[in-house]
């Protein structure tokens, strides 16, 4: 959607250039003896679906001289009074245009000018069209449907857990190790380092890190260990403080809490890394947790942590950084496990229920993959047409992003 509107914007800008060109030319046009290119034909304007009633889609049949004698097309618009103004232009070989920022409910018609070396040839005007708006984007029915199923499953499982049904969740190694790692730091009398990635609160991985922080800080408070949390965004600092404070309060030790546990360093990626590296070798934390969005710093941090002999647990959803964590850390939460961690650690049946719902989503994905691949393979190996139809119309119909 965004790309589309950007493209249109550029074409509009383009149009200004071309229009200027066209307006400079009329004198040449009259004087020259050369014939004009054939005009475009069958100009049609249609309401753009699923917008807020500001767009009309104009299309036409290319000039027969296209592309040899044609530079491009100018789009002229009239508000029903036969006074046509140029609103944009496109290159040759293109035969559609989206006119944006119209007034909903008003009637417009269009005319296409074909630009040749010697001038502009005008087409017949189109029938009038009215931009209209729709309340629901029906094109996204598939996303709504699958989304509804999965969200519904998550919520249904949450309620069934609330009603007291026992739900089984397997053990996740990295998360089981978490408490042990905090315990070890306590025994050694050394602090725990918590790095929530380098992104701000508008990244879901940071959100996941903050929800996990709540559980970790609770264990830290119970064990009476020390937590250090340098962060690279001010908003993350604020949220982290609230979270840690709450954990200490619910552990019944509000006096042990201090605002200095979470503090802002700098937004600059490598400046932050430089400071954390220094902190690590000076304070020698016994446990380092890297949970959130990480980039190139993943290996710098985890190698430094390794050099001071810390237990390291990492988690991120970025596939490009996972191998570095896998290589240098003791445990790594891979993608989905990062988001499941806080529910798992809470042990609260309702939250565990949401993990069950997530699993149902996986079942949907797996069934889709099996059916889709089977259909595609049968279709291509034995030319079974019905399979091809099933794949194209049903499977790809559902799993396509409009």
């Amino acid at each position, binding site marked *: 959607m965004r790309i589309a509107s950007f493209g249109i914007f550029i074409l509009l800008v383009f149009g200004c250039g071309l229009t200027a060109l066209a307006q400079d030319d009329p004198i040449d046009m009259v004087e020259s003896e050369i014939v004009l290119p054939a005009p475009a034909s069958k100009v049609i304007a249609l309401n753009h679906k699923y917008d807020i009633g500001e767009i009309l889609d104009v299309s036409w049949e290319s000039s027969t001289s296209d592309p040899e004698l044609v530079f491009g097309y100018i789009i002229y618009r009239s508000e029903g009074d036969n006074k046509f103004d140029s609103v944009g232009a496109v290159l040759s070989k293109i035969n559609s245009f989206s006119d944006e920022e119209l007034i909903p409910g008003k009637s417009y018609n269009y005319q296409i000018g074909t630009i040749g070396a010697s001038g502009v040839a005008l087409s017949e005007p189109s029938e009038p069209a009215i931009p209209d708006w729709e309340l629901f984007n029906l094109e996204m029915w598939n996303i709504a449907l699958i989304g509804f199923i999965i969200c519904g499953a998550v919520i249904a499982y949450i309620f069934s857990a609330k009603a007291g049904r026992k739900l089984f969740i397997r053990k996740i190694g990295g998360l089981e190790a978490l408490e042990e790692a905090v315990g070890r730091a306590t025994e050694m009398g050394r602090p725990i380092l918590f790095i929530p990635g380098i992104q701000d609160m508008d990244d879901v991985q940071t959100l996941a890190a903050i929800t996990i922080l709540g559980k970790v800080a609770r264990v830290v408070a119970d064990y009476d260990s020390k937590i250090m949390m340098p962060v690279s965004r001010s908003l993350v600092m604020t949220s982290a403080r609230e979270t840690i404070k709450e954990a200490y309060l619910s552990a019944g030790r509000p006096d042990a809490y201090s605002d200095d546990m979470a503090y802002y360093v700098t937004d600059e990626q490598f400046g932050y890394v430089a400071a954390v590296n220094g902190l690590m070798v000076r304070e020698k934390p016994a446990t380092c947790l890297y949970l959130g969005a990480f980039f190139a710093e993943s290996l710098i941090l985890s*190698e430094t942590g390794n050099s001071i002999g810390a237990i390291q647990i990492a988690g991120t959803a970025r596939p490009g950084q996972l191998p570095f964590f896998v290589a240098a850390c003791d445990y790594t939460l891979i993608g989905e496990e990062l988001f499941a961690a806080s529910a798992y650690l809470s042990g609260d049946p309702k939250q565990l229920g949401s993990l069950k719902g997530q699993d149902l989503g996986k079942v949907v994905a797996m069934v889709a993959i099996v059916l889709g691949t089977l259909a595609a393979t049968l279709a291509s190996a034995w030319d079974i047409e019905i399979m091809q139809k099933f794949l194209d119309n049903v499977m790809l119909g559902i799993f396509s992003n409009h």
Partner: protein
Amino acid sequence: MKRTELVVSSLIVVALMICKFLLPKPLLFSPLVSTIVTILIGCAFLVIFILTVKGKPIERRIVFLVVGIALVFPFFMKVELPIRISPEVQQVYDKMSSLPAGSKVLAAFDYDPPSAPELQPMADAFMKYAFEHDFKVIMMGLWPQGPQQANQSVEAAWAYNPQWMPDSADEKVYGVDYVNLGFQSGNEFVILRMGESFKSMFPADLYYTAYDSVPLLKNIHNFSNIDWGVNFSAGKPGTVEWVQIAVDRHNLPMSAGNTAVQAPMAYPYLNAGQLIGLMGGMAGAAEFEKLTGHTGKAITFLLSQTYAHVAVILFILIGNVAFFLNKKEKK
């Protein structure tokens, strides 16, 4: 500060000062010294291997030191690497050398300083060749730092032949022999609009001179006035976008230089004939330097990079061989 720390730091300072004020510039090892250094690095690996097998893995600082040495020492070696010219780089050179003097060449610099070690040598060699053969060069960038990199390559050409500097005998006049259009935001849309008119995207050059006042640009309206395009690219927007728009829509003959990471993505276009040749990574740059005869940093860098790559591969191998030998013994 502890004693060892003091000793180490003073040693480093002394070494650096010797480098700065006493050593001949540029510093070059004789073939004998180069061989000895290489053998010493080899011996270091042998020692590391033996120690690791014995169950005494070396400290990370030794690893760092070895990598550092592997990166730095080749700078000063004069080793002739057997550089085999690959067909795709030959293609670039063939196209370039077929152009007559006065040809108008568009050079797009789409990279930033972190990728410069790989791409700058290509750009430098190109610029030297272009000045030597009197091409008219139009430089631009789709990356903000691109135009600065372009200027660096001009400076490299000046350093190669001071006669090209301003107010010299054979001066290359800015605005007549070359021009830097600067950076324009908008990624592929910049190329799209340049297809219609360069001026619409670059109303003025990097130094705020109006497009029409630059003599070189007088008769250049769009890609159809350009004889050859070359793109130095480290990612997106880069070669792929140039091919899709400038080559496919406007038939601009074009070659490209890519970072090693980026190059695989450009190969399909090379195979389909949309790109006339491709220089990939440091190796591609070194081949290009060899072809143009303007040996520069790529050949030096290539040696460093090769040494460092071999070092990493050796480290992985040593770690694993030692691990297996130890496991066998335990059994």
